[in-house]
């Protein structure tokens, strides 16, 4: 393998890490604050992808422009699901919410398959295959755009959690729920908002994914697994942790694709075990929302 291939691989990995960070960040805050491992996270990503697909296919709306709509849709879906379904078992052990979100995933995928069929679909704006080159390294516009938007949304989430009163209440809830209640935080509201935000970010990730990759109703499962691995790799509970985890995972994915196609997941799990042995709390350690 030549140095060009290597450089291209590095660039691809970095670009991919942005989208993967966005895939994992919503999963991470829901896990960190609500202590729920949301198996349906990938299904929310799939829904976001379909929002963008339908808006593009039916109305010709540019996929990048449909991201806010995808986020709003998933925000509402997430809020309602948390408030009226997950809230019923909120203090339940991890296994109960695990099963509940697992069931939710199956329902969402079934409904999507029923209404939209199982076909692979693609969002293909005019600039789909276009890009530019630096030296001989190719940079597709859509990947660069996805990278930039992922960083932007991740940054906005950070600003929201750190600098707003509501964001601080969410972090406080994740750190000590009773202490948060003693300050007057309405926990049910904090939880619903967090879950809705996590879902909205999943929606954005789905929109971005739909621009670069074909989509179908079962696409989400692979992303739930990625989100999980990234959170454990990076360390639960911090945005920098998720970004580090996503970067590492993107390199594993891209380079195992070059050197050992088909072994991607095995290698990822191997690295995961290695990281956990060396640093049980993940690369960045356990941080701010826990």
């Amino acid at each position, binding site marked *: 393998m030549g140095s060009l291939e290597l450089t291209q691989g590095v660039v691809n990995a970095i670009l991919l890490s942005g989208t993967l960070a966005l895939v994992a960040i919503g999963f991470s805050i829901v896990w960190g604050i609500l202590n729920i491992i949301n198996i349906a996270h990938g299904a929310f990503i799939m829904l976001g992808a379909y929002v963008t697909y339908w808006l593009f296919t039916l109305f010709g709306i540019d996929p990048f422009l449909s991201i806010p709509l995808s986020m709003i849709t998933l925000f509402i879906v997430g809020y309602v699901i948390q408030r009226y379904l997950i809230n019923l078992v909120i203090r339940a052990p991890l296994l109960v919410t695990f099963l509940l979100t697992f069931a939710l995933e199956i329902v969402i995928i079934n409904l999507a398959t029923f209404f939209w069929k199982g076909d692979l679909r693609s969002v293909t704006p005019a600039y789909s295959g276009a890009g530019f080159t630096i030296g001989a390294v190719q940079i597709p516009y859509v990947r660069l755009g996805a990278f930039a938007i992922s960083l932007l949304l991740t940054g906005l989430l950070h600003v929201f959690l750190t600098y707003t009163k509501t964001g*601080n209440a969410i*972090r406080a809830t994740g750190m000590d729920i009773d*202490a948060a*209640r*003693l*300050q007057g*935080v309405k926990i049910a509201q904090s939880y619903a908002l967090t879950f809705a935000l996590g879902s909205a970010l999943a929606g954005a990730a789905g929109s971005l994914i739909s621009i670069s990759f074909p989509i179908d109703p079962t696409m989400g499962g692979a992303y739930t697994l990625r989100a999980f691995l990234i959170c454990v790799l990076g360390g639960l509970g911090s945005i920098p942790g998720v970004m580090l985890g996503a970067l590492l995972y993107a390199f594993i994915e891209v380079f195992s694709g070059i050197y050992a196609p088909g072994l991607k997941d095995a290698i990822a799990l191997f690295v995961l075990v290695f990281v956990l042995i060396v640093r049980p709390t993940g690369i960045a350690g356990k941080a*701010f929302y*826990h």
Partner: protein
Amino acid sequence: MLKIENLNAGYGDVQVLWDVNMEINEGEVVALVGSNGAGKTTLLYTISGLIKPKSGSIKFLGQEIAGLPSEDIVNLGISQVPQGRRLFAGMTVKENIMMGAYHRNDKEKIKEDFDFVLELFPRMKERLNQAAGSLSGGEQQMCAVARGLMAAPKLLMIDELSLGLAPLVVETIYEAIERVIARGATVLIVEQDVLLALEQANRAYVLDVGKVILSGSSQELMDNPMIKEVYMGI
């Protein structure tokens, strides 16, 4: 100001408080003492709405608050410095202190109160941007008291402030609290260290296995032979 009548409360099937009666008047400093596991924290949690009472009444400024959600109770003016401090470890000192004012919207008054608590605890001023989890025990307690004060409470409840702290640090913090009391605050002080609590308070209640077994002025309790023997080891 606060009137508790025949309060019964506990955790699930385990009843901890039995027919507790207690009263706190405006401007008073009242101590609640009792040994390990007597139910002091449980009583404070019930007043704050973290635990729903089984029966009985808690009236605050004439309004029944038993069973209200905790956010309503903070809103009405009861704040608590909980046992073990319960700071938000990953948040900065400033963020922790400001969480105390979470339910308030009076921006200017909040700023005033913020300046006041920093003046009470100058040490906090130097640590504002440090993670609360990285503070020493004494500093954490200062931060917790500062957070409790930021609620601008009509009634402030402080649970086991002295636990695990060096006497000198405890004294520093109580001096700050005395300044707050001098401004007319109403305070409920919970301590296992009976002498320490009685020194601060006008009146006191003694809780034993979930029941109020004794109450009276601090002086009366200090002179009480049973208290001397059981709680002060004299």
